[in-house]
């Protein structure tokens, strides 16, 4: 199951040229870019690992694209995303975030049913990928 997180996630995966133009758009608005990666596809997993520090004061997208490709090389089968942070007073939040890498196979999610007090039912989403230990969740078993 293809996970859809962040902007553009319902589109076909972006090519490097398309990523570059998105990065250029973000840089043009003065947003700071950062690269993050994770192997936990749960939608509530907000805190991804950072690939280096956020890059402030960049003029050109080539530097970010280089970091992205380094990150992809190091974690070819993980999720990698780019975040663009808008530091303007009053906004100060991530303005744009999109995936730039995903595992070759994404096993998807199942719904866990839990019986709680008073026969109440609680449901939880469980990514099949989490059945395997962290760091070895994707790729050949």
């Amino acid at each position, binding site marked *: 199951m*293809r996970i859809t997180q962040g902007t553009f996630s319902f589109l*076909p*995966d*972006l*090519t*490097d040229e*398309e990523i570059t133009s998105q990065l250029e758009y973000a840089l043009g608005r003065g947003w700071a870019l950062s690269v993050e990666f994770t192997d936990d596809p749960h939608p509530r997993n907000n805190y991804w690992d950072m690939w*280096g*520090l956020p*890059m402030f*004061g*960049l*003029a*050109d*997208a*080539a*530097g*970010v*694209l*280089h*970091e*992205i*490709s380094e990150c*992809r*090389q190091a974690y*070819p089968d993980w999720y990698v995303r780019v975040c663009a942070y808008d530091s303007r007073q009053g906004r100060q939040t991530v303005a744009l975030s999109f*995936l*730039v*890498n*995903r595992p*070759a*196979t*994404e096993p998807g999610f199942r719904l866990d049913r839990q019986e709680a007090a008073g026969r109440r039912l609680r449901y939880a989403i469980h990514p099949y990928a989490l059945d395997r230990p962290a760091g070895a969740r994707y790729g050949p078993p």
Partner: protein
Amino acid sequence: MTARQGFALPRPGPAQDQVPAVPEPLADDATVDLTAERCGAGVDQVLDSLESDLVGLRPVKTRVREIAALLLVDRVRGRFGLSAGPPSLHMCFTGNPGTGKTTVALRMAELLHRLGYLRRGHVVSVTRDDLVGQYVGHTAPKTRDAINRAMGGVLFIDEAYYLYRAENERDYGQESIEILLQYMENHRADLVVIMAGYADRMETFFASNPGMSSRIAHHLDFPDYSLDELVAIGELMLREQRYRLSAAAEATFRDYLARRMTQPRFANGRSVRNALERARLRHANRLIAADGTLGKDDLMRLEPADFLASRVFSP
């Protein structure tokens, strides 16, 4: 599972990161108007302003012209489908203090931008502090950050020889140099590295980092200015600041420079600028002391007295 589409393009090696869309090459018997090409790129303006704004520096100007010609011809060749890959344009500027290394670096960035070699043409000026960290693991992110900021433009490393400290073999400068080398090799189309420093110390720097020397294609030596050139520089600076020298002051200024050149810590163009700054101070002081009515000419004219008060003239 569906086959991956976009991200699954061949995994990015550095080489295939930037593949510009290639338009249809011209026919073999087509001709290209080189003059029109030059005008279109606005190269002449930069070269002319280089010629008129910078006094002397003959070897430097010649080399800049050669580089401009090469890039222009490369562009035209590209239109015939004869691409030779981006030339290596990393440079090293050596010369004594005040010979115009930084100024030329700024111009170079603009020139390369106009010729379409650099996408942005900005200059990121760094020194050892900006590249080398203070503790283990600090250097690489710092250097990468500086390089990323310079992507698409020029990374200008002033006093580059400080990067390498021979006396301390555990110095982090070496790590910084290695990262720099890697980027200089792999991101030739994105980044131009210009190093600047005094000739003798750059020599030792390159001697201990042979890889660096061989990756820098252009070693430009900035000669010291002659007396005539220094006078011309002074006049140029005064014109920019809307001052002028009286006829008597011209001779005094020349005399001043001749004396200053023989003194220690003479810094070419920078010394001229400092001398003029001080002359402006004395000029203002003199006008206040005279305390009369002033015309526009009085406000613009520097007199010999403004220079003669200098320490240089006292024995």
